[in-house]
């Protein structure tokens, strides 16, 4: 398995998180994205490649330029990742609260 294709591995990196924030505001070319970092252009390209591999970014050809924009469906997947786990604990704690309220009134 290619670890780099794991979405959560991808967003663990601060540079990649910044890239996602940048393109969330507007579609950008690789050059415009790289201009926001002190790191070398190939390093930024590598990050873009990883984000592309895990489908967080989508490329769009506009004339001679290639623009990167965010894949909102994939971002939604990340937000929903924790939700079933949170829901399980929420249900348990709701039950605990109900049981203990009855226990109190006994």
């Amino acid at each position: 398995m290619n670890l780099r294709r794991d979405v959560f591995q991808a967003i663990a990196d601060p540079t990649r998180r910044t890239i996602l924030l940048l393109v969330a505001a507007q579609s950008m070319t690789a050059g415009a994205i790289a201009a926001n970092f002190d790191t070398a252009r190939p390093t930024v390209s590598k990050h873009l490649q990883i984000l592309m591999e895990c489908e967080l970014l989508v490329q769009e050809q506009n004339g001679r330029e290639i623009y990167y924009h965010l894949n909102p469906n994939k971002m939604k997947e990340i937000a929903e990742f924790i939700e079933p786990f949170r829901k399980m604990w929420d249900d348990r704690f709701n039950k605990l609260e109900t049981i203990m309220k009855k226990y109190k009134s006994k």
Partner: protein
Amino acid sequence: MERKTKVIAEEGKQEMIITREFDLPVELLFKAYEEPALVEEWMSNPYTTMKLLKYECKKHGSYQYESSDSQGNVVFRANGAVHDFIPGKKIIRTFEMENTPFGVQMEVYEFEKLTEGTSKLSMHVIYESVAQRDQILKLPFAQGISMAHDRIQEILSKVK
């Protein structure tokens, strides 16, 4: 409904923090963790019954429980050691699902009084690795599927 339970699992970290505010005095909240019959009650749901096989609420004590499905089949067993048990304040223990590759996690429970009638629980869970934490976070998806499956079976058995 208001989201009372919060789960914080930052990317790339092998820990997780679960917090919840209760409309209960802290003494009652703690009792729900102390009394075996109460633990079994709130940890069970229509699809899973939780039964404590051993429950020692004391420093250097241990616990073990099993979860069964609606047909009474044991789904899994879990156990752990109690590192510390401070009534009304704190529980530190380990947790491990038996015969699974998920490893051991350390759990620190802090019980806090907010007002006379309200309290807060903070669960700090530390896993062996980031990968292990993420794997466990993904588990409820599988549970949700098996719950739906149980529900289908339940409906089908009534139809028969």
